[in-house]
């Protein structure tokens, strides 16, 4: 197992390096001049030139990448020129919000998706299965901003059950905090469960046709026991991967959902950085998020190996 972990860790290095290069290029190749952005509307060409020199913007691209990478490796991702905050400070303030949102969304997604998948698989091709598969398609084709607005109008404006926007930290008011997260998490989850459901459903249908299930049935085990104990675990391999990938995908979803529900998370930070051309924050956040994604994938691989020993031995 240790050998496997080390192998996977080493494989991550080139990926991380590529991620850093791409992140750097995104910010460098964006139209517009950072010096001009900082100095603003009234910058004279001399001022811009001086600032470009100060910031090393007149150096070749490879040199700038290497010196930036050097700083990043020392833990210095730079400082926003608008707010004076360091990237790490800004991210540290915002990350708990996004993590909570993503975890709650994934949790709600699983909560809906897994039971539905099991029920569908148990009677594949039946009326419930057909209805839910259809609904899943419908949900997948709904854009999240539309879902968000519909939920807000129903639960906040009409029924007054939940707040439309806002946030309190969990440490300040745990219940209040959860209330603020229900609608945004539900918005994301409604786009999540169809994928979860479809993957688990088809895997379970396949598992249910295996010989050992037939044997279990022959032994007279209860259908529920067969479904949950004998069929669920071997059918959930793909689900683990999907869940891992989803977390990365969810980060994209937070850009929209956090803006609509006014949650102070990473998504909002990123959108704000784009609007204000705060390239230092943009670069830093994209880099950290990309690294986070690589790490989540690593964890998924590890889980995979735990679930299916064939993988860590390199047979599958």
């Amino acid at each position, binding site marked *: 197992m240790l050998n496997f972990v080390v192998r996977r860790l080493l494989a991550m290095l080139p990926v991380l390096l590529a991620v850093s290069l791409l992140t750097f290029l995104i910010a460098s190749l964006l*139209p517009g001049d950072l010096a001009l952005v900082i100095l603003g509307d009234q910058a004279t060409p001399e001022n811009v030139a001086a600032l470009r020199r100060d910031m090393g913007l007149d150096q070749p691209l490879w040199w700038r990448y290497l010196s930036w990478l050097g700083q990043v490796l020392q833990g210095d991702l730079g400082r926003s020129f608008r707010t004076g905050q360091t990237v790490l400070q800004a991210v540290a303030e915002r990350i708990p919000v996004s993590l909570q949102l993503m975890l709650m969304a994934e949790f709600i997604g699983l909560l809906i998706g897994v039971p539905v998948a099991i029920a569908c698989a148990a009677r594949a091709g039946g009326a419930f299965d057909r209805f839910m598969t259809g609904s899943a398609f419908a949900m997948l084709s709904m854009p999240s901003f539309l879902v968000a607005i519909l939920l807000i109008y129903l639960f906040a404006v009409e029924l007054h059950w939940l707040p439309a926007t806002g946030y309190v930290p969990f440490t300040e008011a745990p219940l209040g905090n959860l209330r603020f997260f229900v609608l945004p998490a539900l918005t994301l989850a409604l786009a999540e469960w169809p994928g979860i459901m479809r993957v688990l459903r088809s895997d379970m249908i396949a598992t249910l046709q295996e010989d050992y299930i037939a044997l279990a049935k022959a032994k007279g085990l209860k259908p529920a026991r067969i479904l949950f104990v004998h069929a669920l675990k071997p059918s959930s391999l793909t689900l683990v991967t999907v869940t891992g990938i989803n977390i990365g995908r969810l980060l994209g979803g937070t850009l929209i959902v956090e803006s609509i529900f006014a949650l102070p998370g990473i998504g909002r930070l990123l959108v*704000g950085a784009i609007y204000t051309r705060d390239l230092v924050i943009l670069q830093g956040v994209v880099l950290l998020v990309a690294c986070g994604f690589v790490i989540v994938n690593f964890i998924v691989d590890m889980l995979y190996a735990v679930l299916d020993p064939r993988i860590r031995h390199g047979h599958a």
Partner: protein
Amino acid sequence: MTKIAAAARKHAPIFLVAAFALLPLTGPAQAQKSGGSITVGQELEIAGFDPLKVGVYDTSTFTAAAAIFDTLTTLDEKGQAAPKLAVSWTHSDDYMTWTFKLREGVKFHDGTPFNAQAFKENFDRQKDPANKCRCAFYITNIKEVLAPDEYTLVYKLTDPSVNLPAVITIQSQNNVVHSPTAWKTKGDDYNRNPVGTGPYILKSWTAGDRMVLEKNPNYWDKGRPYLDRIILKPLPDAQSRFASLQSGEADIIWDDENDADNIMKAQKDSKLTVHTYKGSGAAVYAFNTKVAPFDDVRVRQALVMAIDRPKMSQAITNGLSRPASNPYGDGSWVKCKDDGALPFDVEKAKALIKDYGKPVEFKMLVTATPRGRMVGQVLQQFWKRVGANMEIEQVDQATIPSRAFTRQFQMTPWRIVDLADPDPQMYANFRSGSPLALAGYSNPELDKLLDHARVTADLGQRSEDYCAISRLINKEAIWFWTFQNTYYALSSAKLKGFPKMYNGVIDVSRTWLE
């Protein structure tokens, strides 16, 4: 008339206005209630308050600055300068020197006394070339600020300004007064820990979420403010911002014409109030008259005559936008019987283009926002109808000023903002040789009118001058105007005392809850 008598006559209106300005604050007719807390839903996140860091305040920052800081002067309900940190003012005959008497006994939130020296330090810090502040551009017309004694402040200007006290009322990066002790001791952290003399003190600020302002118990204006607490929240999405107002999480929200549906919904809702202010200024466009095809007046006139403003307003904002025929607008004291606006006339426009004889093809800059794209597309259709082909060039907002200043455009969008006096903007936009005279157009008659308007005290005469300027610009079609500036805020009907939204600023520092 003796010099003193002349001076007294000149200043009388200012003192009269000052007396009127204080009336609503003390009048018994309005029963202000103390206590309570409101939440303000804003469009943008605030980056900070240190002019050296943020450069220029945006509309969301204005709202916070109006509560945390004071300015020397303020605008009353009639749009005239009234006292705030300055109690009175006088000027030299040539309007190149203005002397302000400051309010005594005012302290910043950190205990630092407010006086002429503190103000001067604010000014010098922005002006100092070593600080490279973007904010410095907006005070280039002020040569220096002097503090001859503790409560006297002298502005020395590079050009005359007949209406300086009204011009410096906006809660902008240049006008609000910061505590010198605070920025010196806090350094980099000052940006997000501002200290002013204003009615509210910054209590806490959670990035991206909320800014909590608490009542300043030692505010110089006794009895004010009324609310105990103001919470400012960035709610970037227009739909959910409006939903927050409907569901009661916000008491007042920022809005604009592009959200016309919700404004109309609020107008019909008895629990909500629509605050609107028809300011001066307009959304405007400049032709680069130095390049073809705009070096020919026929082409410029044809394009202006092809624009159907009411139809455009309908297409973009459900008819909420108010067409503009001059750069001043209904909110300005400049009133013109004849502003020389070119009529909407498709046939005449077609004839002018035909007369020009060459194909009319050009590029127009628009902002890379849904709003900018839409405006571009509508104009494109109008112009196509009269035989002119416009290509839309989308660029981000920050690029437009730099392209405009370096004259790398054929046509660019611009804005004349709501200021108490047309002089600063008109002079900068149209005087020959000004870096902001984007059209590249020069005319001695126009220069003469601009020069005359800025040194004339008589408002009637100045109004005449500005109307003549409008006639000239409209006739030559070097710039054109589409819609006047209109500002919106939507609030719960319980919120009272909300003042006029000069320059679109949501100033909640004087409001109370019924």
